[in-house]
């Protein structure tokens, strides 16, 4: 019995899904070159203190990684539609191993998206000390926890027909409010964005400014959402044994 083998086949499936690869890898990459390349020499984008290539590198990475994490939802909804979740529940695969495989794949895909954006950023002149790269990556990984749980939650709550619009629409709204397309530095959007984990995902780029990239609010928001979404995801998974 090997959970690793199971994860490997799941990964194979994720890579064979072209639409998913496009939205989590190709699309953010394309947008990055469209937004950052023309502003390659902007050193202080909209008073953020960050260069345009750095700011957009992190903001597009947040979009790609968020999509990667939430795509768990599309995979689970697809499996539920064909009754595969019931098939798995009558196999020795434990709930823990099942969810761990889902989360592992989401993070692997997110890592791929992140590395792609880092390489593209470096190509447009983003240069940071190794320490900052690491710290930024760690913050992104942490800020993705609520999205990992949200993917599982959505997968068990939404039908396969509506999961695409739900994830696409959800990420688009979150991206808008969280400063993914352009920095949001003041006003209602800014205040509202602060209570979302996606806002702090984008803010991970602030490591370049020295000091902590997140303030106390940031940590509280990310940890709070992580806890809430994990509880919701666990509950949605447990309650979902019925025939489709």
């Amino acid at each position, binding site marked *: *019995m*090997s959970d690793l*083998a*199971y994860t490997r*086949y799941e990964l*194979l*499936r994720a890579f*064979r*899904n072209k639409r998913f690869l496009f939205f989590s890898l190709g699309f953010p990459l394309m947008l990055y070159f469209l937004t950052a390349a023309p502003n390659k020499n902007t050193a202080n984008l909209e008073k953020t203190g960050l260069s345009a290539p750095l700011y957009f590198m992190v903001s597009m990475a947040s979009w790609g990684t968020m999509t990667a994490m939430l795509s768990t939802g599309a995979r689970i909804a*697809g*499996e539920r*539609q*064909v*009754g*595969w979740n*019931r*098939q798995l*529940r*009558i*196999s*020795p*695969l*434990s709930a823990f191993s099942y969810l761990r495989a889902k989360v592992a794949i989401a993070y692997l895909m997110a890592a791929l998206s992140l590395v792609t954006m880092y390489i593209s950023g470096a190509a447009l002149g983003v240069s940071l000390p190794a320490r900052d790269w690491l710290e930024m990556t760690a913050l992104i990984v942490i800020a993705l926890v609520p999205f990992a749980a949200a993917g599982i939650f959505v997968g068990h709550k939404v039908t396969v027909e509506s999961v695409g619009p739900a994830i696409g629409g959800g990420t688009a709204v979150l991206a808008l409010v969280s400063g993914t397309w352009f920095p949001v530095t003041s006003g209602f959007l800014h205040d509202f964005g602060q209570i979302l984990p996606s806002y702090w995902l984008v803010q991970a780029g602030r490591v370049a400014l020295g000091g902590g990239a997140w303030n106390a609010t940031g940590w509280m928001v990310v940890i709070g959402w992580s806890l809430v979404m994990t509880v919701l995801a666990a509950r949605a998974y447990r309650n979902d*044994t*019925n*025939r*489709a």
Partner: protein
Amino acid sequence: MESSTLTTGIRLEGLVKTFRTPHGPVEAVRGVDIAIEPGETVALLGPNGAGKSTTIDMLLGLAEPDQGTVSLFGGAPQDAIASGRVGAMLQTGALLRDLTVRELIAMMASLYPRALGVDEVLELTGLAKAAEQRTEKLSGGQAQRVRFACALVANPDLLVLDEPTVAMDVEGRHAFWATMREFARGGTTIVFATHYLEEADDFADRAVLMAHGQVVADGPTTEIKARVGARTIRATLPDAPDAALMTLPGVASVDRRGAAVTLRCSDSDAAIRALLTRFPEARDLEISGAGLEEAFLELTAA
């Protein structure tokens, strides 16, 4: 493996399950008791809505009974499943896409501690030629075989099949049961739901008849067949006395509506021969097998 837990088999006791629906509660299962010994092959026979699938869901731990208990090999269904002793082919369900047939079966095999070899299962289920095809490109019959292969590869002590041949043509059905016979020689306990009497008759040692959420008959398939396999003879026969018809061999009951009589038979072959000998004037003869549905209604009404 401890023989004590092997010998206890499967026990369903006092199972009750009610579903809430927009049209009010539906009592899907209303007090079901079934005991199955290891190595037995049991058919759950019944029309749609009899409660077969709900019973199977409870047997597998996919649904929690409102009342009653389920025990598989002396423990909870979840324990038997966690140790890989149960393989099942559920009724609803397509296949996971973006994998080849071989990959999907290998993925399932990886989850079970005593799994069969993937090639062996591909061979057994007649899928060797389709092994490298993507699951989403398969025909209905092939997909059904793959679902069967996913259950077989577990090499289970208990194999549960919920209407396994439902989408198959006659040929596919024969091939399916031939494979099952091969597999059943290994002493696996097999429980399958069907609404085809002949499947239960051909393959099971024992049939449990369900109707309206209850067990209406439980016994060797030969016995069950005699009960529900009854045929009726209809004839236009105005002048024969009912009492005389009743004495014909193989006739169980006589029902008359004017000139038309209906003879319910335990042995229709003997009855028709005797009828034509004694009453050659009988016209408009019609012999029909009692449908399962009809037989069930009768059994539950009694």
